[in-house]
């Protein structure tokens, strides 16, 4: 998934596998009213007002009328501060493999978070972090292979696509074709 515009487009995101996987992520919600006899967790249960439950995003979006949502931990103000300070070292794969996509999804109007300001700030943080990480990734794509697997584990899904696109040799086969030095000394290029 590298085209994040798909998150907003209802008809395109319906069948997109990355979007489906992304909306499976859970969000904690609180019931607004006394709801009787719901079967959200396979057994009929009553929700009194304010009871917390974890729902996947696709469900939480549609049940907007009945539940109040909370911003997940990886998008709250504290984490925004971390991202603003130094985006290149944060391990975004750990924070949910589809960090940027989910962040964009949370800004859609179906959600009802307590604090609107925070969402705007979160989106701006995402923009800044994504721009800085993209420059970092393009630098990395040009560099040597040695640190590659260490860096890969820190990228979320969208950035992994960017890395592969920035290095066509990886996409086609395992040989680094051209973008490293061709010197007269080593005529035989080892397979990497």
């Amino acid at each position: 998934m590298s085209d994040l515009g798909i998150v907003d487009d209802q008809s395109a995101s319906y069948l997109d596998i990355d979007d489906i996987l992304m909306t499976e992520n859970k969000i904690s919600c609180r019931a607004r009213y006394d709801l009787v006899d719901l079967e959200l967790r396979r057994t009929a249960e009553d929700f009194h007002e304010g009871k917390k439950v974890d729902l996947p995003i696709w469900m939480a979006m549609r049940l907007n009328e009945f539940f109040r949502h909370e911003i997940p931990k990886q998008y709250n103000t504290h984490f925004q501060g971390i991202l603003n300070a130094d985006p290149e070292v944060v391990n975004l794969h750990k924070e949910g493999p589809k960090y940027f996509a989910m962040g964009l999804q949370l800004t859609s109007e179906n959600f009802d978070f307590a604090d609107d300001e925070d969402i705007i700030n979160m989106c701006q943080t995402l923009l800044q972090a994504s721009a800085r990480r993209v420059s970092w990734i393009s630098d990395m794509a040009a560099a040597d292979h040695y640190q590659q697997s260490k860096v890969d584990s820190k990228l979320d899904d969208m950035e992994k696509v960017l890395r592969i696109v920035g290095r066509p040799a990886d996409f086609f086969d395992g040989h680094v074709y051209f973008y490293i030095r061709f010197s007269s000394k080593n005529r035989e290029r080892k397979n990497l």
Partner: protein
Amino acid sequence: MSVIHPSEIEFIAEDELIKVTPRFREQRLQMITGNFGPFAPGVPLKIPIWMALNLKNRGLVIVHQPKWMTEEKLKEWLESENADNTNAIAPLHYHYREISRMLLQNCRDNMSDITEIEQLVEDIWNVRISKLKMSCKNVMKTRWQMEIPDHGGVFKIDNFTQMEVNFIRGTFLKGLNLSFVMSNKITTIEQKAEQHMLGDTTNSSATVPTGSSAMSQFTQSQNQN
């Protein structure tokens, strides 16, 4: 996602004409890309590089060094590249890197100053690529620091060859697209927040569940209770 491998760009570069001296006799060859004139031993003519490399591997031809591929010209180019910090100089040949790679791998025996030329081409490539990367970084920085215009922003770069542009094409274009999508999102939610603040009644969103009329009856009955 459109990924172009550097070997494909080299393939495109193989269509360039290069001067050779044949060692065989042959009449005019009519090929798809053009007609290549009668071959007489000792008479130089221009043929495409793919043909030249093939004939050279069979020992039928001597390949001349292109005029731009001399140590002096390349040194001059490298110095002018180093002098200008941000912009690239017009290249001596549009496919300088591919052609120099192909010739220096296959036609070494007729060339002079091989190691120096390799070194110079490598240095020129590094300087140009670093300029390109620097300007890309600056553009990405402006994407989050400043407003992105409605059409997404138009960026112009001069004097870079196909191979260099291909180097940044994938990540840079996707990065631009990404920042555009996000910045649009920010403007929409900011506008919406302003509407909320000004006390406008919130319009029902497009994806209100279909049971909304039943829901409103429910709330009314709650209020009555």
